């Protein structure tokens, strides 16, 4: 299908806010019990981008978080590691050292995270630095200001440029190190600032058409961050884009997902919107920090029948 038809077909497909919220509420009403709950918990752990994005982040802090990423439950290896560790660019080289050889991905926020209110030149620089320091996943922010001004071309071109930068830098690095390095681009829409679901759908399409490997809800610095209805809108956009182009785009809700129940609702929504091909950490990530311990607590409860106090779970 050519781009014009895709555009005409998809962009005149408006979103109904009430219907979206109803559908999201319906899906979060699914009752996931017994063995399937354990499966969902394991899957959720494997999808986590364990995140720390604070001004006070230090080498010591990222060391701890990397250790936790590797061994979420030190005494039980039926729970695997998380998918990635996500930090600010300055922390990347430390993370790369701590995670070396583990297969856990290294994600860096970039492009003047979280506001994105910097010149493109600096954003490019930011991205190159992050990749050179060892990041293989870039979480960029879109220019929400430009989007709200209606300058969609700017937003599109900026994403496209960063995508190119990712490709070129990783190629250079691959040649230099003589090993294949692939860098994935996650595009943060910051849906809390776009506000309407129509905007979210539009921004999702702009991101995907510009080459995003993932689209992501939020930076976590703006409220509301990830919500079920906003995630549904994005998953539906991914599905519609896939149906028209055959391109599979990943999804990452981030911010505000703290409990096992939340995580399971997201996974049920994923399962019943995009289906089994997306039910893995190549196609779905959850940006979170405190979620992990709740998942572990529920995992232990599911196995033993008892809840343990938070003292039994490491705080990193």
């Amino acid at each position: 299908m050519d781009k014009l038809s895709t555009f005409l077909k998809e962009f005149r497909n408006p979103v109904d806010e009430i219907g979206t919220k109803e559908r999201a509420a319906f899906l979060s009403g699914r009752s996931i019990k017994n063995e399937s709950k354990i499966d969902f918990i394991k899957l959720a752990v494997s999808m986590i981008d364990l995140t720390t994005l604070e001004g006070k982040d230090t080498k010591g802090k990222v060391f701890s978080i990397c250790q936790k990423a590797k061994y979420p439950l030190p005494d039980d290896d039926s729970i695997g590691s998380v998918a990635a560790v996500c930090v600010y660019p300055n922390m990347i080289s430390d993370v790369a050292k701590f995670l070396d050889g583990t297969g856990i991905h290294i994600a860096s926020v970039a492009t003047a995270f979280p506001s994105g209110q910097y010149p493109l030149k600096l954003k490019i620089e930011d991205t190159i630095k992050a990749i050179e320091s060892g990041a293989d996943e870039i979480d960029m922010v879109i220019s929400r200001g430009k989007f709200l001004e209606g300058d969609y071309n700017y937003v599109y071109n900026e994403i496209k440029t960063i995508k190119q930068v990712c490709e070129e830098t990783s190629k250079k690095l691959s040649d230099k190190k003589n090993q294949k390095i692939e860098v994935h681009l996650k595009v943060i829409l910051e849906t809390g600032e776009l506000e309407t679901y129509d905007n979210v759908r539009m921004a999702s399409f702009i991101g995907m058409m510009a080459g995003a490997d993932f689209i992501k809800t939020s930076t976590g610095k703006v409220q509301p961050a990830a919500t079920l209805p906003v995630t549904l809108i994005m998953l539906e956009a991914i599905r519609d884009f896939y149906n028209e182009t055959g391109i599979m785009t990943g999804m990452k809700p981030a911010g505000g997902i703290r409990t096992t129940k939340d995580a399971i609702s997201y996974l049920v929504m994923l399962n019943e919107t995009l289906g089994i091909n997306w039910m893995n950490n190549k196609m779905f990530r959850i940006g979170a920090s405190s979620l992990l311990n709740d998942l572990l607590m529920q995992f232990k409860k599911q196995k033993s029948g008892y809840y343990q106090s938070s003292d039994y779970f490491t705080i990193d």
Partner: protein
Amino acid sequence: MGKIIVKKNLPEIKYDASIEDSKHISLSKKYDLFINGKNLKTKKYFKTINPATEEMLSEVAYADNKDVNKAVTSAKNAFNKHWKKTKPSDRGKYLFRIARIIQEKAREFSVIESMNGGKPIRESKSIDIPLAISHFFYYAGWADKLNYIKTNSKPEPLGVAGQIIPWNFPLLMAAWKIAPALACGNTVVIKSAETTPLTLYKLAEIIQEAEIPDGVVNIISGDGKTGSYLVDNSEVNKIAFTGSTEVGKHIMKSTAGSGKKLTLELGGKAANIIFEDAPVDAAIEGIINGIYFNQGHVCCAGSRLLVQENIADLVIKKLKSRMNYLRVGNPLDKNTDIGAINSKNQLKRITELVKSGVSEGAEIFQPQCTLPAKGFWFKPTFFSNVSQAHRIANEEIFGPVLSILTFRTPKEAIEKANNTFYGLSAGIWTSKGSKVFEVLKQIKAGVVWANTFNKFNPASPFGGFKESGFGREGGVHGLLPYLKD
């Protein structure tokens, strides 16, 4: 500390069965009629089963002509001796009591409704029972405010109301009928549907617990004959019937000239209209909810989908993929979307009409799903390439079967929507507010939903045009049929 395990792909994820506990319900082995505040044994009893397993749940009394007469006499005596003299605020008090006690027992009612009727527990828990409760609450509030319905006329009850309800929403339909009748000061003889009598007899227990005076509500069960005894009884002042158009016509004939007031809520073949500017994903949910809610055993089901031709391919594609996620099976599983067909007879009728659709050349679609071995089941189904001339586009199937037709312009959509002998409900899907009102004005149906479907509220009147019946239930309009003109 073991080695680091990076898990990329896990096996396919299933939802384990999450069965609603049914241990807490209490069902008797045998239910007698409930007449004049007491249980009344009859000569004959019939079995009532769980349509999902074909297992017997209870035996229920069959009311013959004599039994019906007893019920009507009891209602008449109660009306004359005390109920018509009861203070309106007291009538309200009793209705509030019923509402509150059902609320306390909502879980038990939900489970029994699902076991006896085959509907998913999710629906009985979130729709049937809460709505029934809200109808009692709503009309309880009206009982002492009837003077404000009409100016310059004193509201007067009719006497004995004979009420006959269908099997698709047993308790809810009972609430729709009993609540306004009592609020207006009438007494009631209500006949349950043949296949789903149980929640009505549970309601009888509540009526005793609420200390409603004897004879004000009388509950009977039986088949079509029992219903006709009630309709033909000369002491009955009003008949309220919900059910098939065929029976409705018969009732209208037999009550003609008898002076009985009559309301009929009959079949439907609702048009659910999807315009090119509709929010498509929301509309898909509306289509699913419109036709597969309660296995399509819904008189106002959106069984005729009218899609604008230029988006028909998109809608059908999305509908197909959405239908693969429908979960058909055990009604008591909290994740079940589509439960069992209510009865063997209904399954036969659905199967017959679906066959006619295939033989008339419409294109059938059913998602992949395995149906349980026992019980009555039908896969969610839709037909595309359907025209107005197909049987499946005209006749009410009353099952999970959708017919998809297309139209070219809004004018054509309205013509096709109205080109039916029914007129109960319709749906409009468009993101243009002006179009909603433009189309709405021209649709001949009692209820028209815009960008949603199958939404009910006790304050909102419900009823049909043409062969879908007359009279309204719900809202102020729902009181009028129970008051003298």
